[in-house]
């Protein structure tokens, strides 16, 4: 018998991965070929040797640490920049605790000079940014913004389903304060705390005129901001996500923020069912969709590639 079986065939035979006809052929061959039978035993022994290895299990402590790292801290999108090896997690946490104590002590001894989120008042050249560490914080911040939670009764721009409110810009500080006194904005405002209420109103008007929203937004009067965060960049990022998004998204705002210390666009959209084309009415926008994207990703990616790089993404009912 000259045509010996190759190892791949014997191996697949052992794994019962051959078709019936080939399996019969292999069995017949093995029955009469000492060489192939020997190879079969060898391959079978290797499979058994690997199969005898234990399936390594995590200890109870490791389970807890993993759960804490995944579920306890940064929520759904914890991130490619924040991956901390579990073995070093607690050591780092301890170090950060010391730093935090020092910083808190320092800040406590200084007279207040920077606006807090609650205090946000006048535009600052270096606006205080929302610095998120978890998805819960993001959703709470978005939901608590007056433009989301309190403006619907003040007049919905589109007359749609109670979704005319818009987020203001500026990471909840200057822009947010300015927006409180502005007419209900109907267009997304862009980043940077220095953006003014005037700018917001102008953008609002442009989007209010076009109920569908997106295009008007893209062409709205946008402020020039910093190098990382600029209104133009925020608008571009919003539009990219809107175009690539899994459902029809209506841009609300691009807010300058940080996620665990890293600059990130907080992009907020209203979402809901698709609108019938050209009927002049917007369907209800009763959901909020929030994305966090690194500015450099917004510049360098688009489409699904951009969405895949999202630092955070969630959808939740509009408050």
């Amino acid at each position, binding site marked *: 018998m000259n045509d010996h079986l190759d190892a791949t065939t014997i191996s*697949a035979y052992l794994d019962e991965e051959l078709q019936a006809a080939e399996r019969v052929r292999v069995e017949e061959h093995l029955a009469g070929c000492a060489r192939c039978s020997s190879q079969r035993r*060898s391959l079978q022994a290797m499979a058994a040797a690997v199969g005898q290895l234990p399936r*390594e299990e995590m200890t109870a402590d*490791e389970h807890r640490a993993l759960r804490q790292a995944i*579920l306890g801290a940064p929520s*759904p999108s*914890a*991130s490619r920049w924040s991956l901390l*090896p579990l073995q070093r997690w607690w050591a780092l946490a301890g170090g950060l605790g010391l730093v935090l104590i020092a910083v808190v002590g320092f800040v406590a001894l200084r007279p207040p000079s920077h606006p807090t989120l609650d205090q946000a008042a006048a535009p600052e050249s270096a606006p205080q940014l929302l610095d998120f560490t978890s998805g819960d914080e993001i959703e709470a911040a978005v939901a608590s913004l007056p433009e989301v939670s309190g403006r619907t009764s003040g007049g919905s721009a589109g007359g749609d389903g109670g979704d005319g409110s818009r987020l203001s810009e500026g990471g909840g500080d200057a822009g947010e304060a300015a927006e409180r006194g502005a007419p209900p904005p109907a267009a997304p405002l862009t980043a940077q705390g220095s953006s003014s209420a005037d700018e917001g109103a102008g953008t609002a008007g442009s989007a209010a005129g076009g109920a569908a929203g997106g295009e008007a937004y893209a062409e709205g009067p946008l402020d020039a901001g910093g190098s990382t965060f600029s209104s133009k960049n925020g608008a571009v990022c919003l539009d990219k996500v809107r175009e690539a998004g899994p459902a029809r998204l209506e841009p609300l705002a691009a807010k300058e923020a940080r996620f665990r210390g890293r600059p990130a666009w907080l992009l907020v959209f209203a979402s809901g069912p698709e609108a019938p084309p050209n009927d002049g009415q917007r369907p209800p926008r009763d959901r909020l969709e929030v994305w966090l994207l690194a500015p450099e990703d917004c510049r360098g990616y688009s489409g699904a590639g951009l969405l895949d790089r999202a630092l*955070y993404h969630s959808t939740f009912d509009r408050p």
Partner: protein
Amino acid sequence: MRIQDLESASDENLVASFVRSGDRDALEVLLRRHESSVFGLAYRMLGGSRADALDATQEVFLTVFRKASSFHHQSAFKTWLYRLTVNTCHDFGRKRARTPSPMADGPEPPERPADVETRLSVEAALQQLLPGQRAVVVMRDLYGMSYGEIAASTGVPVGTVKSRIARARMRLAELLTVPEEREP
């Protein structure tokens, strides 16, 4: 979905629940279901290092949660999860220029003394396989995955899986002295 529903829900429905409503409980169920197998696979692929396997497991699940919205059910969740595990372990292998030191950083679980010598040899031999070979042979022989499942999880054709498994076993046979063959 409430807890009882979550426990009985499919992996795919849990992912959908999370994507739809940010349901953290769904994430927790997914984690509980699959963390051991991800860790076990990573442990074998990363040279028997508990620290590396834990880091890889953490990264795999963070990636799962970050990319949950991009999981479109073209494959089973478990397949997607294993694929992330394989890719993550390959990345770890590339990034960490380290010499594998099997069992160097963790206590040994209880075992039968007669198995010790063989097992250590098998583990050492596994680490000498090419990463692609090691992954498929561990998936097949330790986790009982079919060739089709392995192909989907590694992103290579079934035929490639078949040949890699065979080559891995032949290489192991070269590296190992199997007790039954040691005796005439």
